[in-house]
């Protein structure tokens, strides 16, 4: 748990209390989350670990306004996400949150630059698509269509797309899940750089315990509950990781 001194020093970005998510499947009820309390602070890089089905994605989706909790309260700064309307959630995602997914979810009919532009065009204070692509090291591939890029490059376009609006938070669900370790490290470097240079609060879900070494804090979920939270005294740079 974060020490009380930390709370005063750093701004609280997310505050989750007693978050429960139940999928009602008719006869059976699936408890994806069973009362999660979690605080995320500005500029922090948090890694979420846990076995498959433990509720990591569910938690991240609720934080990102993609899903709603069954019970409990989640707030983002002063905004109570758990009681926000669909319209407010769309606005919240549009302005404040960047997403990166395991399967990239790029738009095949748009070039790298345009995939980023589709977000910058609707954000209030974005960087240019070029800037954000430079930031992930793809300055020379801007006019390529997704089909013309490797998996790692596609994922970096997805990151560029996520950060281009200068989001306050970046939520990544298994960003390296479909990549080999070399490419994965390139992607993690991009995420780390964004976190460091822009101060974006970043949460990364992974199955790869080695990645935890680059986090400020590591949250471990088991069966819908937070089993353990550890703070890394010494963060490793992505280049130092290998798996």
């Amino acid at each position, binding site marked *: 748990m974060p020490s009380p001194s930390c709370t005063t020093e750093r701004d609280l970005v997310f505050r989750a209390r007693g978050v429960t998510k139940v999928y009602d499947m008719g006869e059976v009820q699936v408890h994806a989350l069973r009362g999660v309390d979690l605080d995320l602070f500005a500029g922090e890089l948090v890694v979420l670990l846990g076995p498959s089905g433990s509720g990591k*994605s569910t938690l991240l*989706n609720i934080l*990102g306004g*993609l*899903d709603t909790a069954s019970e409990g309260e989640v707030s983002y700064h002063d905004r109570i996400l758990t009681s926000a309307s669909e*319209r407010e959630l*769309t*606005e919240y*995602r*549009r*302005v404040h*949150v960047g*997403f990166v*997914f*395991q*399967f990239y*979810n*790029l*738009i*095949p*009919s*748009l*070039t790298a630059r*345009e995939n980023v*532009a*589709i*977000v910058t*065009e*609707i*954000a209030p204070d974005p960087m240019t698509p070029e800037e954000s692509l430079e930031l992930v090291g793809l300055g020379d591939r801007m006019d390529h*269509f*997704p*089909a013309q890029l490797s998996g790692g490059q*596609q994922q970096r376009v997805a990151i560029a*797309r996520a950060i281009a*609006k200068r989001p306050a938070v970046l939520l990544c*669900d298994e960003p390296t899940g*479909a990549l080999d370790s070399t490419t994965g490290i390139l992607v993690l470097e991009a995420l780390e750089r964004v976190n460091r240079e822009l101060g974006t609060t970043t949460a990364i879900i992974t199955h790869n315990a080695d990645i935890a070494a680059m986090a400020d804090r590591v949250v471990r979920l088991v069966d819908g509950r937070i089993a353990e939270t550890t703070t890394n005294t010494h963060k490793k740079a992505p280049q130092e990781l290998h798996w």
Partner: protein
Amino acid sequence: MMRRMKAIDKKIFRNLWEMKGQALAIALVIASGIATFVMSLSTLDSLQTTRASFYSDYRFGDGFASLKRAPNRIASQVEAIDGIDTVETRVAAFVNLEIVGYERPVTAKLLSVPEGAPAQLNKLYLRIGSLPDPAREDQVAVSEAFADAHRFVPGDTLFAMINGRRKELTIVGIVLSPEFVYQIAPGSMIPDFAAYGILWMGEAALSKAYDLSGAFNDLSFTLVPRAASADIIDRVDTILEPYGGQGAYLREDQLSHRFLSEEFRQLRQMSIMFPMMFLGVAAFLLNVVISRLIQMQREQIAALKAFGYSNLAVGLHYLKLVLVIVLLGVIGGTLLGMEFGQAMSNMYMRFYKFPYLDYVLRPIVVLGAILISSVAAVLGNVYAVRQAASLPPAEAMRPAPPANYRVSIVERLGLRRFLTQPTRMVIRHIERTPVKSGLTVLGIAFGCAILILGLFFNDAMAVLVDVQFFQTQREDVSVTLVEPTSYRAAHELRSLPGVGRVEVYRTVPSRLRFQQREYRVAIQGIEAGGDLLRLLDDDLNPVPIPEDGIVLTDHLAKILGCRPGDSVTVEVLDGHRPVLTVPVARVIKQFVGVTATMDLNALSRLLGQGSAVTGAYLSVDANAEAETLSALQARPRVAGTAALRSQMQNFLSTVGNQMLTFAFFNTLLAVSIAFGVVYNSARISLSEQSRELASLRVLGLTRGEISYILLAELGILTLIAIPVGWLIGLGLCAFVATGMQTDLFRIPFVVSSFTFTFAAVVILVSAVVSGVVVRRKLDDLDLIEALKTPE
């Protein structure tokens, strides 16, 4: 015993349930195609079956002849001809009628009912009342069509001019006869049930009235099977010639039968053409929709294959899914088609006087419907499953490589900077999948085309009426005279109240022959410089009547296979029955009927007689028409009069009504096809792009913004499809216009701007409704789902 359903079969029902809206829309398209098919064929079958059984039950004659007067013994001579089975003689006469409370002129054919023994041929079906007492001169039975038009019931009376004497007749019965199923006056093209009726009177009374006791002036006969009919006609003619025979003819030339056959022929043409086009379009759509649906299941197919299902097993699996939809469509379509078919048949029963209707739906028709739609579905299925199954399973299961996109042509033209990202997505998506976009356009275009085809009949009918009743026939009243009269006598009609122009004519019954082809038609001689009956060239401009030679309607020229410059043989069926050779001077355009026209003087010269006339066309002051008509009625030489306006109304209420009823049902079905197509296209695009759109929603695009991406594509494709559909529709109409040509009328090839507009509006409304449905579905898009799965 219930067996547990196999997992793979459960999948069919799950899949169907997931796509229920779409499955229903596809079934609707199939059902509409099947419905036209079942409706048309069952109507045709029903009418034909009904006619066949009425003819045989009521012993409709195979041959007929009219003559001046022959003693009864002559009948046995005719009966002795080899090949003739039964002969029945009778007395026939045309009479003018007066009906209290009915202003317009009425004529009737008065026929004798044999006394003593019941009739052998052309028996009467007694609907109500009784047959006239043979000895009573004041009792008649009347045809049902005539009775209905005047609301006659047994006991009502009317007056007839029988052989110059005005007689009061009492209606004792209402009857139907196989001879008058299609009740139409000789020489007219359009039935008028009120103005022309059939009356039956006892033979003794009628022959007495016409001084024909012990004699007859009309006969009919039946033939033994496989009789040499042409020879028999010649031999009958030889026997009757001395008695003023007017040429015997076979059933195929009998007035009612001939009209009925022409109408059936036209109905058959419609019953083949329409369903074929509708089913063709439905099959095409089914094909497109099914193959796209299956392509979307690419990964599932790969997975099934990975588990060890063979390509065949996978194919059969999807085939079952498709056949369930087809079955739904066939059942719905057959039920709807039967409903419409019965409505259509009943509508026809108002014009065709059958005592009863046998509604028949032959199983073969339903089987045909099942077969056609299944084949279409299977073909669509085979192609798509083949494509999907051709991928090695491992490859298909891997997240599909992002599709290859290029900068679109529109953008390369330099418009790039004007386009927003979503618009670029839309345009690239359309260009990226040209085949798919093309098929969507074609599908919607066919929906549009079918609408045009359905409405085309309204346009054609309007032009036909205009050309026939305003540009060709321009008289107000036409008059037929009892017997050929001198030219001057006819022109005296001008002195009648209200009469303006008078143009006389002469008709001569004849048979035209060219090479082996022949056609029975009355040649009409008209005055040069006339304005009340005009001849029109191909561009519908009036042309003068040539001084020499005969003018044929284009349809008659086609039947005979002759052209201007050829000479046709004219066999006159009247008087001395000369056989002449006449050059074809001109071919004219006429949509209604079949006519052969000559200059009046040229015709008289040809016949070698003085200038006699048999009728006249009059222009009449509209306010004085009633007065003129009654003045005409009073003149003894006038056999009949007809007002053009009522002819036109009759045309519209008979032929026009039939065509438009048919077109109405078809338009209804076309609307549902068009909607089904547009709706399916929208739904498929939705399924295909939902993942991409969900990703965009996650990135913060609003519902409105992602809807734009999907709906703009639908909008663009719809807008492209409409003009394409107009063109295809024009093609279909041209096809129908050339295909549907009968002696009764030809369909002019004209499509009005209203029809184009209506088709476009239906398509646009369908697109908007589909758009709204899709929009609502987009609101329910599962965002998280899209992130969990690779494509």
